[in-house]
């Protein structure tokens, strides 16, 4: 069992948890993930490592409540325990001195991009970060990402804060500017990663994305997480999750993410009913 040391609501639907997991913390690197199960009948789901503290022996995850498992997690408090927390899984993000790197984070993945930006900066890169959200109320960690970037651009879809628009617009402007961009790292919803890749492709700038297919074991045992990159089948959990965005078969990824739409809906409805009847008691 793994103890929740801290819980914080970053925005109403995005929650931060600090979990006691010394073995994972001693090995964690930027870009890796953990597999979590929230209760004994629960599904195994992957969540990115957003931060770690080797001395305290803790891992920080940032979770967006979307379906049954993430909502169950969102109900837990500091002092509660979760039964499964395995990691660090996947390959760490490749970090070296590239020159100038643009880091793009969308939605909950702003949390994921922070340790990557930090590592890139420590490696001597100039880091320009772009973060986006649908509206002002969904923005978090502007300060944290800002503190590990040389400059930061913030967008909201509806213009309720900072620049109105989506992240690909400032990304395109940067590529068109005089600044030589050596690499782009884009992490967020699949659509966002796809469009960032399409944006950078004409400029020939290497673009790394962190893919998020459905997983089970997270150790290369089942093949559920297979994606196609450059025409080859890859297992995201062991060969990734980072891949070259220009080579990814995005349609396949979209299709495979939808395999259990009906079941996910059913689970969520059941969970909502249960939690309603629970709160009435």
């Amino acid at each position, binding site marked *: 069992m793994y103890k929740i040391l801290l819980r914080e609501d970053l925005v109403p639907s995005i929650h931060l948890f600090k979990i006691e997991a010394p*073995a*994972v913390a001693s*090995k964690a690197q930027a870009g890796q993930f953990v*597999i979590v*199960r929230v209760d004994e*009948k*629960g*599904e*195994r789901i992957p969540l990115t490592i957003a931060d770690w503290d080797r001395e305290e022996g803790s891992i920080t995850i940032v979770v967006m409540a979307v379906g*049954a*498992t993430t909502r169950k997690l969102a109900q837990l408090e500091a002092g509660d325990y979760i*039964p*499964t*927390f*395995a*990691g*660090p*899984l996947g390959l760490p993000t490749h970090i070296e001195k590239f020159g100038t790197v643009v880091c793009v984070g969308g939605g909950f993945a702003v949390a994921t991009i922070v340790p990557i930006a930090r590592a890139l900066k420590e490696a001597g890169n100039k880091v320009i970060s772009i973060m986006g959200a649908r509206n002002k109320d969904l923005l978090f960690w502007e300060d944290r990402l800002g503190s590990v970037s040389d400059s930061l651009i913030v967008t909201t879809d509806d213009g309720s804060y900072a620049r109105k628009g989506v992240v690909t617009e400032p990304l395109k402007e940067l590529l068109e500017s005089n600044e030589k961009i050596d690499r782009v790292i884009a992490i967020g919803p699949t659509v966002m990663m796809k469009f960032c890749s399409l944006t950078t492709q004409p400029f020939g700038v290497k673009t790394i994305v962190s893919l998020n297919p459905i997983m*089970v*074991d997270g*150790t*290369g*045992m*089942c*093949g*559920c997480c*297979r*994606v*196609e990159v450059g025409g080859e*089948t890859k297992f995201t959990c*062991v060969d990734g999750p980072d891949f070259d965005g220009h080579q990814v078969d995005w*349609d*396949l990824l979209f*299709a*495979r993410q*939808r*395999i*259990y739409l009906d*079941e*996910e809906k*059913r*689970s969520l409805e*059941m969970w909502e009913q249960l939690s309603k009847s629970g709160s009435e008691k």
Partner: protein
Amino acid sequence: MPKLDLNRISMPKQEPLVRAKNFNEVALGYTAEMALAEASRCILCPKRACVDGCPVEVDIPEFIDAVRQGNMRDAVRILKSKNSLPGICGRVCPQETQCEETCSLAKKGAPIAIGRLERYVADWELAQGEMEKPEIAKPTGRRIAVVGSGPAGLTAAADLAKLGHEVTIFEALHIAGGVLMYGIPEFRMPKHIVQTEVDYVRSLGVEVRLDSVVGKTFTVDDLLGNGYNAVFLGIGAGAPMFLNIPGENLNGIYSANEFLTRTNLMKAYLFPEYDTPIKAGRRVAVIGAGNVAMDGARCSLRLGAEEVYIVYRRSEAEMPARLEEKENAKEEGIIFKLLTNPKQFFGNDQGWVTGMECYQMELGEPDDSGRRRPIVKPGSEFTIDVDTVVVALGTTPNPLVSKTTKDLEVTRRGTVVADEETGKTTKPGVWAGGDIVTGAATVISAMGAGKRAAASIDETLRG
């Protein structure tokens, strides 16, 4: 000489059409009368031909005699002195090619049903509630890390603990048991039995650390550097093989590992009570013909499929599945499409598989495996409509450990090189056994390897 009794007592089973709709155990086990009748057929031959066929040399005639005498405690003790996991072996070992093949009565077509008696003894002990604990040698002060909690790891851990060593099992998944938990279905290997046997190993003082992916959470060198005097690798051959033909990543196409893990480990057959879903469609094709394929096919039926095919490129004679499982599958209505090999998959515009184009095959000259080689019949392509496919071609070793362990030699197939007698690898302090060394094999051969390695580790550490 008394007359030979050739009336082998059959095992009561759930009716095929009933069991094809539930996940309860198919074979129901002997009653006391049946066990006594079967045990009484044994002629206790001094040659002990059956023991020669047993990879862990269980004292078969002796335990059978104890059953016959009604000394069940003795039967348990005799059995468990050689085999820590009798409830498992009695259910899934291929006795027909082991002890029951060498049994003197096999020539007469009626070998003693050793596996069924073994299961009977194990189930008897379980029903008593209290498990008898063997004597444990005094602590040696040596610590051993066992990686993987399948039959190889559990056996090695149990033997080492009995010898007085301090043993920790590191298991990647959230439940111990290996393939017994995630692969073999409930209706063949009830999970409470596996967990009872895991608990027995724990009761010997073995600590089981779950969620510990060696190669990620710890490396083998971390373990050796952190106070472990030896490491035993029993990590199985867990990586799935695919056909590598067009369309294989369509929705609805699963590896057998994924299909069985969702169903068995994650209990998708109890969705939505359990959270993990599975899609078993109406028409399911399972590619392959080993035990894994039979399990995939029989799970599909139980998950509600209407028509389930086993698609195999050779003929029935070459099928590697246990005879009993093949027969069970047939009785339940699984359709065997033999001499058939997939060429490609077709899908709809939503990315779901809808069909599978296959070649008709014929058998040519024997190949390296001694079996007749399947050859494509030119122009024989035809299409089968399917909405789910389970690819059960076998598994290969997962490279997570070998890639992160220097000085550990692996073969071209990815299996770890280890001495057959001792399990010693090329890396000092590291032993290996089970599927990670042999490639996908059997529960009992993995247990045998775990035993031999435990003996060698003990000898080395005391030496």
